[in-house]
C-alpha cells in the first residue's frame, strides 16, 4: 500500500463539560504528522472525549481542534469523496455492526462510497484482513469472534479506508496481556507499513511503551506532561512516576 504523509492534529485551549461536570479544562496538545502519540491517564479523565473531539464526533465547548488546520467538525461534514485526508477510529468495544459479516464490515466504507467493487473490493478487503491476520474469519459475524479478533476486525475496517490518521480508544480494554501484546505487534506493523499519524488513548503503560513515539499524561482536564518513549523511565513528574511504578516498569 502507498505510504502516507500523516496529518498534524492540534487541540488549542479546548474545554468540554457534560452537564455540571467539566472534563477538559483548556487542554493544549499537538500531534506531529506521522507521529504515534499515546495519551495515558486515570479512568474518567477525558481520554476518550479527547479522541472523540479529534475525530469531530463532538464539538468542544470552547477552543479549537484542528486537523492540518481544518476544524475537526468541518472535516467531519465534508463528504467522503472530497475529504483532503482520511481519518479512521478504532473504538473501545470495536463497534462492529453485528448484522454484517467481518468481510461486510470491512467492505462497508468502500462499498458505501463506491470506491471499489467486484474483484477490486474483494482484494482491498482481503488486504486489510490479511494485515491483521484475520483472513480466515471473513465470513464470520462479530458475535462469533473473540475479543482480540473483534479488535483486529475493527482495525481492518479502519485500514480499509486507507487512513492518514488512525485513532485508537482503549485498544487493550478487555484484552488479556497476551492479546494486548499481539495487538501492539499489529499496530507496530501498521506503523512500519504506513506513515500515518496515530493517537492511542489507554491506561495500559506497558502497551503504550510498545507502540508510542511519545507519551502524554492527561490529568485534571489538561496535558500535564509529555515525554519521548525513550525518556519515559527517567521521567520525574510525580503523577507520571506513580503511573510508571504502578505498572511495575521501574
Amino acid at each position, binding site marked *: 500500500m502507498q505510504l502516507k504523509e500523516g496529518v498534524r492534529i492540534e487541540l488549542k485551549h479546548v474545554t468540554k463539560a457534560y452537564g455540571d461536570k467539566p472534563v477538559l479544562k483548556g487542554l493544549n496538545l499537538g500531534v506531529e504528522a506521522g507521529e504515534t502519540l499515546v495519551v495515558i491517564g486515570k479512568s474518567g479523565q477525558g481520554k476518550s472525549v479527547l479522541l472523540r473531539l479529534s475525530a469531530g464526533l463532538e464539538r468542544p465547548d470552547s477552543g479549537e481542534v484542528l486537523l492540518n488546520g481544518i476544524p475537526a467538525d468541518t472535516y467531519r461534514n465534508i*463528504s467522503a469523496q472530497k475529504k483532503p485526508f482520511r481519518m*479512521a477510529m478504532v473504538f473501545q468495544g470495536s463497534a462492529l455492526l453485528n448484522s454484517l459479516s467481518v468481510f461486510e464490515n470491512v467492505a462497508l*466504507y468502500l462499498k458505501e462510497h463506491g470506491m471499489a467493487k467486484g474483484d477490486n473490493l474483494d482484494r482491498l478487503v482481503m488486504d486489510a484482513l490479511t494485515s491483521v491476520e484475520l483472513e480466515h474469519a471473513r465470513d464470520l459475524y462479530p458475535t462469533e469472534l473473540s475479543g482480540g479478533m473483534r479488535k483486529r476486525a475493527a482495525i481492518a475496517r479502519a485500514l480499509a479506508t486507507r487512513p492518514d490518521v488512525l485513532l485508537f480508544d482503549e485498544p487493550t480494554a478487555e484484552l488479556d496481556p497476551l492479546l494486548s501484546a499481539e495487538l501492539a505487534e499489529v499496530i507496530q506493523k501498521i506503523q512500519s507499513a504506513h506513515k500515518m499519524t496515530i493517537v492511542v488513548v489507554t491506561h495500559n503503560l506497558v502497551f503504550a511503551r510498545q507502540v508510542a513515539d511519545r507519551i502524554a499524561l492527561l490529568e485534571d482536564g489538561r496535558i500535564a506532561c509529555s515525554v519521548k518513549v525513550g525518556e519515559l523511565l527517567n521521567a520525574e513528574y510525580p503523577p507520571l512516576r506513580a503511573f510508571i511504578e504502578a505498572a511495575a516498569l521501574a
Partner: protein
Amino acid sequence: MQATERLEVKNSQGLLTSIGRSVLYGLEILGQSVDWALRTLGSFREIPKRAGLILDEMVRIGTSSLFISSFLAFFIGMVLVVQTADQLEGYSQEVLGSIVGLAMTKELGPVLMAFLLAGRAGSAMAAELATMQVYEEIAALRTLDVSVESYLILPKFIATALTLPLLILYADIIGILAGAFAVAIDPAIHVSVNAYFHNLQAYLKFSDIIIGMAKGLVFGAVTAILSCTIGLRARRGTEEISSATTSAVVWSFITVTVFDYIIARVVLIF
C-alpha cells in the same frame, strides 16, 4: 446559592415541576423527531441504493407481525359482530355487515395494526438503534462517513410506511371474514351470511378502504421516526436500551391516537 440549596431545588418534585418536565421532554422528542424526519426526507434520493435494506426490513416487519395481526383481527371481527348483534337485539341485525366493514376499515384496522406495529417493530427499532448508540456503532458509522439517516433510518421509515397499509388491508379482510364466521356459527345472530355480505357491499366504499390504508402510511411513518429518534437518544448504559424500547411504544401509541383524530377530522371536512 449553597450547594445543598441547589440540590434541594433540583430535586423538588412538585406537581407543576413534574408536569413542566414532562412537557419539555415531550417537546424535545417532538422537535428531534421532526429534525430526523426532515433529514430522512432529504435522503429520499437514496431509496434505489437502499432497496435491498428496505425489502429486508419489510420482510422482517411483516413476518414478525403477521401471525399476531391475524389472531387480533380475527377475534376483533368476531367480537364486533357479537357485541353489535347484542345491541341490535329487537331491531334489525341486517346492518351488521356494514358496521363491521366500516369499523374495521376506517378505525379498528388502522389503529390496532398501528399499535401492534409499534409494539413489535417500533420497539425493536428503538432497541436496535439504542444498542448501536450505546455500543458506539453509530459513532463508528459517522467515522466511516456513512449517513445514519440514509443507511439506518430511511429503510425503516419506508418499510414501515409501506408495510403497515398492507397489514391493515390484511386485517380488514380477516376481520370481515371473521365477522361472517361469527354470523354463521352464533345462534344469537339472526341474519344470514349472504345478508351480511350484501349489506357490507351496499355501504362499504372503496374510498373507506383507501382512507384506512392511507392512515396506515402516516401511522407507519410516524412510528418509525419516533422509534428511531428515541433509540438514537440513548447515550449511556444498557438501562437506556430498555427505557428506549418502552418509550418508543408509549410515544407511538400517543402520537398515533392524535394523528388518528387529525386525519378523521380532515377526511370529514372533505
